[in-house]
């Protein structure tokens, strides 16, 4: 039997502490849509996405009302498009545009999967596909792209890393009038996961079932609030508090995921146990770290605090859900977290510290604005560093940086909405072009050979 406190605690979490389900993402396989030419394929893709995801938005809205818990985003992820257009890669844009039209017609905010997996080598059709990314991102609004350039099993494809440095620059330039916003829809991964519900990196893996519902939970504000009740607890006890809170948040996500899957006739995929911040005050991962006793995120101690937070979230969440997956951990996107924005504006957090933090949290260098004149090879080198952290530590890492055209250090760029605003951070002025220019594949680490 429920007691009063339990009911009021849940309501308080929703109304005062920003507890929400961050996204219900439907994964749709596009493999049945491959036709003899690009036009017919694009038509089949549009029809299939519309058919499978037709009920997504109304169903999610009804669930939100009935359970009294906000569900912020409705999204779709699809099979990496490079596989669908392998016979006519130069015309991949037709499929990308069809997906963007479907996203508008469905009323979803993002559709992910304009993607390629090139971690062990770039096939000719994949090279041609990659070249379409800047133009497609500039010409669409809701489509997201991602490219996997490395894995713990296969090493890092430095040729693809170099290419991605160039494509990020080109995407920024093509969307220069909107501060390079195209780059906010482009993620470069190492160890990309096939069931990630979060954007911009979501795609529907080829090992997945036909249509799947993946749910991303959130709730940094709830964790911060719970910690505020025990300001003098030692870190063992603080980790327990985080665990218990993550358990409750995840149980809500699990319930919504199961119910959404049943109503939509899809398979329940996974719950992603991530703490995803927004630019709203009271919804910040950085502020959780500060609640633990740091004067400002970015100071010494930040990596340790984040490691503890990330691990405690996983431990609480795993107990609460029958199937866990995606990225599952704490996100640290700079422009989307008010605590991170403020630390960056006051010069208290650097790219180097952010890189260290990515070795213990669930993703990588995320939503970071850098000077528009940063060379492509420097961006490629940043990607290589992140991929190396992911490869060696058997975890997902990602780079989503925006070289803002015409802007430099000290200026701020405003993306609006959930994408927030970002002060432009300085990058190291040293030159890595010779290293990146060598190309080839960084071999997989010795500890990856487990067979």
């Amino acid at each position, binding site marked *: 039997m*429920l007691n009063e406190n339990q*009911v009021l605690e*849940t*309501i308080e979490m929703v109304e005062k502490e920003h507890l929400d389900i961050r996204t219900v993402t439907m994964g749709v396989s596009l493999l049945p849509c491959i036709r003899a030419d690009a036009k017919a394929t694009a038509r089949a893709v549009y029809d299939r996405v519309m058919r499978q995801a037709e009920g997504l938005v109304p169903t999610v809205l009804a669930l939100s009302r*009935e359970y009294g818990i906000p569900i912020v985003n409705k999204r779709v992820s699809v099979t990496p498009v490079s596989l669908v257009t392998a016979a006519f890669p130069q015309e991949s844009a037709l499929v990308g545009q069809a997906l963007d039209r479907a996203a508008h017609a469905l009323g979803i905010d993002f559709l992910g999967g304009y993607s390629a997996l090139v971690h062990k080598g770039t096939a000719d059709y994949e090279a041609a596909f990659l070249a379409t990314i800047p133009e497609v991102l500039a010409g669409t609004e809701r489509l997201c792209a991602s490219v996997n350039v490395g894995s713990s099993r296969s090493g890092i494809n430095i040729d693809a890393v170099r290419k991605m440095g160039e494509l990020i620059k080109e995407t920024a330039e093509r969307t220069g009038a909107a501060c390079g916003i195209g780059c906010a829809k482009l993620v470069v991964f190492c160890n990309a996961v096939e069931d990630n519900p979060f954007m911009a990196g979501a795609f529907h893996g080829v090992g997945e079932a036909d249509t799947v519902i993946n749910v991303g939970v959130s709730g940094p504000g709830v964790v911060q609030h719970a910690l505020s009740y025990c300001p003098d607890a030692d870190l063992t006890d603080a980790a327990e508090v985080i665990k218990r809170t993550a358990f409750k948040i995840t149980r*809500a996500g699990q319930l919504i995921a199961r119910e959404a899957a049943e109503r939509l006739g899809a398979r329940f995929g996974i719950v992603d146990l991530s703490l995803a911040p927004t630019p709203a005050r009271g919804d910040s991962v950085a502020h959780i770290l500060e609640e633990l006793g740091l004067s400002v995120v970015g100071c010494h101690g930040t990596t340790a605090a984040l490691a503890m937070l990330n691990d405690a979230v996983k431990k609480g969440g795993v107990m609460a859900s029958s199937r866990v997956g995606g990225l599952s951990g704490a996100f640290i996107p700079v422009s989307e977290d008010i605590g991170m924005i403020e630390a960056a504006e006051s010069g208290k957090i650097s790219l180097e510290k952010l890189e260290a933090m990515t070795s213990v949290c669930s993703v990588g260098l995320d939503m970071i604005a850098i000077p528009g004149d940063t060379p492509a090879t420097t961006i490629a080198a940043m990607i290589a560093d992140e991929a190396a952290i992911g490869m060696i530590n058997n975890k997902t890492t990602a780079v989503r940086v925006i070289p803002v055209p015409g802007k430099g250090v000290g200026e701020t760029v405003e993306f609006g909405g959930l994408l927030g605003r970002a002060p432009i951070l300085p990058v190291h002025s040293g030159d890595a072009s010779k290293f990146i220019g060598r190309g080839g594949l960084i071999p997989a680490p010795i500890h990856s050979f487990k067979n």
Partner: protein
Amino acid sequence: MRAVVTVTGTDRKGVIASVSGFLAEHGANIEDVSQTILGDQFAMIMMVNIAEGGETFSELCEKIASLGREIGMNIRLQHAAIFDAMHTI
């Protein structure tokens, strides 16, 4: 189905009458009630059982929320499952 009604806001006359009247009209049986007033703040939690077959639960959630707006209180109707999920193993 089991559901939870919560009513919060500044205390005023007739709140319980309006809410219980609405529930009776819509085929919901009140199984348990807990109510407190702290200062001028009113808080009430009701466990209800809603008969199948009438309007959809989603519609009922909307209607009771709009009743709340009419009488100046915050009224929510939610599936009991969300509370069970978050607070019981």
